[in-house]
């Protein structure tokens, strides 16, 4: 097992983790501040990708298309919040889960009616090949861009949440909503903004990942489950928890898929290793989540003291 392989897998884990972070950041704030379980978060990821596909096609520029898709999806998210989700804050979690699950179905069918079941979105030509990072080590250039974008957003978010007044209000809302409201914070508007911001991050993740994956109906559901795993591990309502949780999940998943089957072959008969390896690798992150819930039920970085 060479150093180059380990480095490449680390980059893969980081890239996957940072994209999960874009989704988890919005999700954790919504969950943390309003105590609202929003399953339709994945639908915003899908809508963002479809909008990006259309806008990239219309403008002829990948960067411009993606940049336009972010505010467009944010608007969709805010409209959704004002018209539907706002009615659900006072309800219990079960009602929220049922209502937002219905939103997933509605969003899927709506997208199918508007765009059809899938849309093309390809990597810009300049980024479609590999780059040589170290002698003999090639890495997909587009994945490097994803890492850069993910890190930039993480830094920006950290700055906004810890250093600005809006960020302070967000943190106040996350740690104690009632007290923040008692102190005169307009939680309603704040939340619409946070929701729109989260939707924008979803669009960024959807648009960045779409050339790697596919722009298709239902693309949000699988990744949403991972985003929930991330916020449970990181601690609900905490941006820092979302970042650490994302990178842990990204790394564990990648390293599990890469090295676990080979590791098992070392000390198990091949027929068992062949059957157990892929199965175990795919449930590794859920085992991790179970362990975190067992030892730290509030997550690694709980927002509420």
């Amino acid at each position, binding site marked *: *097992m*060479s150093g*180059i*392989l380990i480095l*490449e*897998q680390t980059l*893969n884990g980081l*890239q*996957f983790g940072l994209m999960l972070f874009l989704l988890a950041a919005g999700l954790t704030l919504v969950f943390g501040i309003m105590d609202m379980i929003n399953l339709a978060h994945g639908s915003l990821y899908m809508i963002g990708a479809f909008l990006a596909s259309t806008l990239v096609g219309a403008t002829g520029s990948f960067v411009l298309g993606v940049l336009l898709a972010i505010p467009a999806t944010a608007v969709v998210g805010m409209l959704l919040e004002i018209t539907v989700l706002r009615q659900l804050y006072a309800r219990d979690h079960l009602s929220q889960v049922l209502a937002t699950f219905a939103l997933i179905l509605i969003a899927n069918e709506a997208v199918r009616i508007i765009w059809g*079941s*899938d849309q*093309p979105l*390809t*990597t810009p030509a300049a980024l*479609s*090949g*590999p780059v040589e990072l170290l002698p003999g080590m*090639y*890495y*997909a*250039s*587009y*994945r490097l861009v994803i890492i850069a974008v993910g890190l930039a957003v993480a830094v920006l978010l950290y700055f906004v949440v810890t250093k600005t007044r809006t960020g302070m209000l967000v943190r106040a809302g996350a740690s104690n909503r009632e007290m923040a409201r008692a102190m005169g914070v307009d939680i309603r508007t704040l939340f619409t903004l946070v929701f729109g911001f989260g939707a924008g991050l979803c669009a960024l993740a959807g648009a960045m990942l779409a*050339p*790697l*994956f*596919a722009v*298709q*109906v*239902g693309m949000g559901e*699988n990744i949403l489950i991972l985003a929930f795993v991330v916020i449970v591990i990181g601690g609900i309502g905490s941006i820092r928890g979302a970042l650490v949780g994302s990178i842990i999940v990204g790394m564990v*998943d*990648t*390293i599990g*898929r*890469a090295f676990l*089957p080979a590791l098992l072959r070392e000390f198990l008969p091949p027929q068992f290793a*062949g059957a157990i390896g*892929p*199965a175990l690798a*795919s449930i590794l992150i859920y085992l991790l989540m179970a362990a975190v819930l067992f030892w730290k039920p509030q997550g690694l970085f709980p927002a509420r003291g």
Partner: protein
Amino acid sequence: MKRTLAALGLALPLAFNAHAADKVKIGFISTLSGPSAALGVDIRDAFNLAVKLNGGKLGGLPAEVIVGDDQFKPEVGKQLAEKNIKLDRVDFLTGIVFSNIMLASVPEAFANKVIYVSPNAAPSPLAGAQCNPYFFAVSWPNDAYHEAAGKYATEKGFKNVYLMAPNYQAGKDSLAGFKRFFKGKIADEVYTNLGQLDYSAELAQVRAAKPDAIYVFLPGGMGINFIKQFVAAGLTKDMQLAVPGFGSDQDIIRAVGEPMLGLFDTAHWALDIDNAANKKFVAEFEKEYKRLPSLFASQGYDAAQLIDAAIRDVNGRIEDKEAVRKALKAAQFQSVRGPFKFNTNQYPIQNYYLRVVGKDSQGRLVNKTVSTVFKDHGDAYVQDCKMQ
């Protein structure tokens, strides 16, 4: 004497009923929604095209095609089959893309002596010990493409091949088919999650393993992503990528685009197979639907042609199941794939070709035939089939 009279009594109404039917009903079940819909839509469109080109008739009888969407769910496929057989009283069933859905749906047809003409799924159990007189596969046995790919890899002189497939039965079967005809060394055999979209971790392992070729069985969206990521990771110059025919057909080419150029695959049909039937099919399909037909479309078209020929050969007497079976088995039609006949298990004996993705005269990406890998190739299970 009594027995003779009784037999006569039974035979007479049959004899009077043996005139031609006034129309033929086809139950068409396929996957028409969801990420895999492109395959079912191509089969349906091509089947309808064949009927249309025949003036709305099959074998001289006005044809009614009852289309149902199985939604990629075996239980829905089974329900549709039951409805088609009991309520619509169809004469033939056809259309299903996926083996698991078909295996759930056809027992109903077999029990009621309704003939199923498979335009795609042709799993190994129905080729061997469980072969059935009411099942005709007009496509290709599930392992065949992979066997051809294994033979191609051996002939090409690949010494060290990396294999990858989703972790489910068809994935394991496909790699078994490849290994049946590949004589070199297997670098590694990796099973990924069914439906996985990101292959970065697997690709890094492939790079480190340094094989001279990699063979992947990743149908639909999985294949689209794998090929895109394989190209982006820069692995194209280190090793040869090989896929089964449906891994680089028109539906995948539409989604992936330029990176497909130069990709090798194995299949029983291609756009450029040189015969009159195929030329007509490709031209008419493109005229009708404004896109190039895929493998799946060619299979749907041939399914309709096979039924057409059989009805014509029994002069429209489709109630006589035995005669229809005989006529189907004779396969008196011009297949778009060229030479085609049925084996004793009613699975095809046909040629398999090596194809490569290149550009046609209009600059579009298409599969071009390179050479013949297997001539008159059957399947590995036929000796277990006791059917006469």
